[in-house]
């Protein structure tokens, strides 16, 4: 690709939101990332809007969608793979029609957010890790599976400001989960089922206490002791984990233990935690919900005021229990189809989405960063990245459609 014509473009297909890809006359240079390559090659399987399976105009589809929401006693807005503009518009719509709004599978993110709400956080952005971290601990599952350029973007910075060479990287977790392509200084082999106990032991060792080895004879105490020493001796340590890859049901406890470790280390030196969890603009959507309503997820407007409950307003639970009577599913950043539901479903889906059953209303919306410009937030929560339109599909954005539906509801009220 000619450097003269190529310009940098940001990639919306994982929470790293790398913005060093190049777009030019011959296409997009994805810097070896298969996920980005697949994302930018998303096919257009459908671009027509439908009502009851029949092709119709956008205008009519919006009318029918508004009618469904107007008639519903408790609508659910979910999916929420949208850019910031989409999230802002969908929150306005949910507020107006008294809906529950919950990002699909927000439970993983909620584990982390609940620890923050209860105890706090000690964290940093990618740029701090890339420029300062001399010791990096990767906890649990291999982050490169969901974040392919993790190593390149956070660890392999050859021109780091404040470290001399590459960081010493240690992995704690199953050997089979060692981060792919990341040179390790040490490995602390621990089965997933024992991860929480290993973190407890690590915390004790960092504090100079003895790990409770008697009750955990299978824990690799010597490597854990070595790791504790590395973190204590680091000038600027970083502990990184993929929130989705903790042992099932233990995400909350593991996160709490890591926060304890971080607090302990910062009494004498510096160490920060960098949770990776926020693809499909999960962080951006949570932030919009926070600033507009005061809660990051699982929110109900049914009582005309924002109400948050992590159990009651879980989208999957509400659908399974039959507690909602209409579903507005919005997935613009990924081709995820709506869950099959017996209630009337309005599906705002990408042109790449394959729908096996026809929802009541099907509206094809553009993918941010592919079909239209937009803004999404990186997994490190601070940096919002501008996305460009990489192709001309002419599809409306989710924000435009949601605002049009809201307009119909307000015109009728």
């Amino acid at each position, binding site marked *: 690709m000619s450097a003269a014509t190529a310009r940098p473009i940001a990639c919306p297909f994982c929470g790293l939101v790398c913005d060093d890809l190049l777009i030019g006359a011959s296409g997009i240079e994805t810097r070896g990332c298969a996920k980005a390559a697949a994302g930018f090659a998303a096919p257009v399987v459908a671009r027509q809007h439908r009502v009851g399976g029949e092709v119709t105009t956008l205008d009519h589809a919006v009318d029918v969608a508004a009618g469904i929401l107007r008639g519903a006693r408790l609508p659910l807005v979910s999916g929420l793979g949208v850019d910031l503009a989409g999230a802002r518009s969908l929150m306005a719509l949910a507020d107006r029609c008294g809906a529950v709004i919950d990002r699909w599978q927000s439970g993983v993110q909620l584990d982390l957010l609940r620890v923050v709400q209860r105890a706090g956080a000690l964290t940093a952005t990618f740029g701090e890790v890339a420029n300062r971290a001399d010791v990096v601990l990767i906890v649990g599952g291999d982050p490169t599976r969901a974040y392919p350029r993790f190593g390149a973007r956070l660890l392999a910075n050859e021109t780091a400001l404040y470290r001399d060479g590459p960081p010493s990287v240690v992995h704690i977790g199953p050997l089979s989960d060692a981060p792919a392509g990341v040179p390790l200084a040490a490995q602390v082999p621990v089965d997933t089922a024992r991860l929480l106990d290993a973190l407890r032991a690590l915390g004790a060792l960092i504090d100079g206490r003895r790990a409770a080895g008697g009750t955990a004879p299978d824990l690799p105490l010597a490597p854990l002791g070595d790791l504790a020493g590395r973190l204590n001796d680091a000038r600027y340590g970083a502990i990184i984990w993929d929130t989705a890859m903790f042992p099932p049901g233990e995400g909350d406890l593991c996160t709490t233990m890591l926060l304890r470790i971080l607090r302990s280390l910062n009494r004498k030196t510096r160490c920060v935690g960098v949770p990776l969890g926020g693809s499909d603009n999960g962080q951006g959507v949570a932030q919009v919900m926070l600033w507009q309503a005061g809660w990051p997820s699982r929110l109900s407007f049914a009582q005309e005021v924002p109400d*948050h409950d992590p159990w009651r307003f879980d989208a999957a639970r509400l659908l399974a229990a039959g507690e909602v009577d209409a579903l507005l599913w919005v997935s613009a950043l990924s081709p995820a189809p709506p869950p099959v539901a017996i209630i009337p479903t309005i599906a705002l889906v990408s042109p790449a989405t394959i729908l096996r059953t026809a929802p009541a209303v099907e509206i094809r919306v553009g993918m941010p960063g592919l079909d239209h410009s937009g803004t999404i937030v990186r997994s490190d929560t601070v940096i919002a990245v501008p996305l460009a339109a990489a192709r001309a599909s002419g599809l409306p954005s989710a924000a435009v459609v949601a605002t049009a539906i809201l307009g119909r509801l307000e015109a009728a009220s």
Partner: protein
Amino acid sequence: MITRLTGGRVFDPANGARGDVRDVYIDDGRVVVAPAGGRADQSYDLRNRIVMAGALDIHSHVAGGKVNLARLLMTDDHRDTVAARGALTRSGSGLATPSSFVTGYRYIGMGYTAAFEPAMVASNARSTHAEMADLPIIDKGAYVMLGNDEFLLRLLAAGGEQEHVNDYVAWMMRATGALGVKTVNPGGISAFKFNGRTLDVDTPGPHHGVTPRRVIQALSRAVHEVGVPHPLHTHCNNLGVPGNIDTTLATIAAAEGFPIHLTHAQFHSYGDEGDRHFSSAAARLAEAINRTPNVTLDVGQIMFGQTVTASGDTMMQYRNRVFASPDKWILMDIECDGGCGLVPFRYRDKNFVNALQWTIGLELFLLIEDPWRIFLTTDHPNGAPFTAYPTLVRLLMDRDFRNASLKELHPAAQKATTLGSIAREYTLDEIAIMTRAAPARILGLADRGHLGVGAAADITVYEDDADRARMFATPEYVFKDGTEVAHRGSVVAVPQGRTHVVRPDYDRAIERSIKSFFDDHMTLGFDHFPISTQEIADGGGAMAEHPCRARGRA
């Protein structure tokens, strides 16, 4: 359409009106000259009412990542205080950290027509603007935080020229859509990343060897020379530390005569005298301010109750974590650029330190003579939520109320303060200066904060009430750009406000070194970092650009 506000007592200090009874005419969002014969399409009978320009809050943490993290932390705040949606309004929650729509409605309901976010992290600018777009009705703007950004510290460490600092500051302000520049614990946030735990004005920082004095010198001068109206907005080193008055006075000296604004000065006016080694140094600061005309300040008054401190000052927030109530806190290092720290606080009148903090703030208000150089703030939410302003106004205007409040405090604090002996009571004219005319002037907003012909018709109408707290809590009418937007606290229209920015000029040669810094070190590219004016406009609402007048080298 011409609207006439008839017969009110007008307090318009910028134009010399001190309660003069006169009519105000509005046309197309502006104050206009009286039409021939006083004809108007609609009029409001404002006899016995008090008319002022809309108030401006010069320092209030209303948007950005730090504010959002504070919301996340303050779960009880969002459970306990909720606001229902209305026909025109969105729902929301929170008192100390209100959600965005509620923030706009509450400000407007109190007669405030603008609030300025004082601590925008440069790398968080895009999110901050997106969030500000959801602050309804009021005008807004943000000060970008510099002085802990590694580019600047490296430039200073290498002995960089002032011209380069100026060009960089101007570039940053444009890139982030800023109205002003703030420095927070200059050099200290960066120092904390190198494990520095304290930093004094003349201490070389742990890595760069740059002193805070050098940062203050370079930035206060840069802001002045590129012609930004608002002086360097300065959060001094050593916030909250007993004895920090010396740091604060040294900070004034470091500006070397260039204009400088000290923010939340209450937190920086502490002595270390007495049995408890904590005392008021308000008189010392007031004396310095009274004789140093290049200095302005806002107070950052504390009021008793639950709140959360939200600050870019990670070094001091880490230190203050031991006071967290409830016991939880967040600390974040941000992108070789800044940081943020959130620590919930409960200020108690029976706590000696908190009680003395309350008296120190009031002493500053009452001992600083020139109302054009002191601004009413609680550093929302750090000292108290902005909804405490009406009570604060009453404390300033009503000595009996103030002294009665003083009697409720921790007895040792009552003994330690001279507050009870201060007779001064603010006048309505002084309140109008401090909350309208002066903040608009210090921010360079020529058409705000006054009611002269051509001014934006941001107007607040109060019923005269001896209980000044009640009076200032719920004005009878509030107009925004000529539209009636609130009536007795209820929102009646929801136009979108403006985002105020300045866009100083710079020598584009600086872009080469900024670009190479981004290419080598940053995780967001040089092309993607700047926020375009189109992006700000796409969020909704208009952008108002104010002129910069570049000043020659002093």
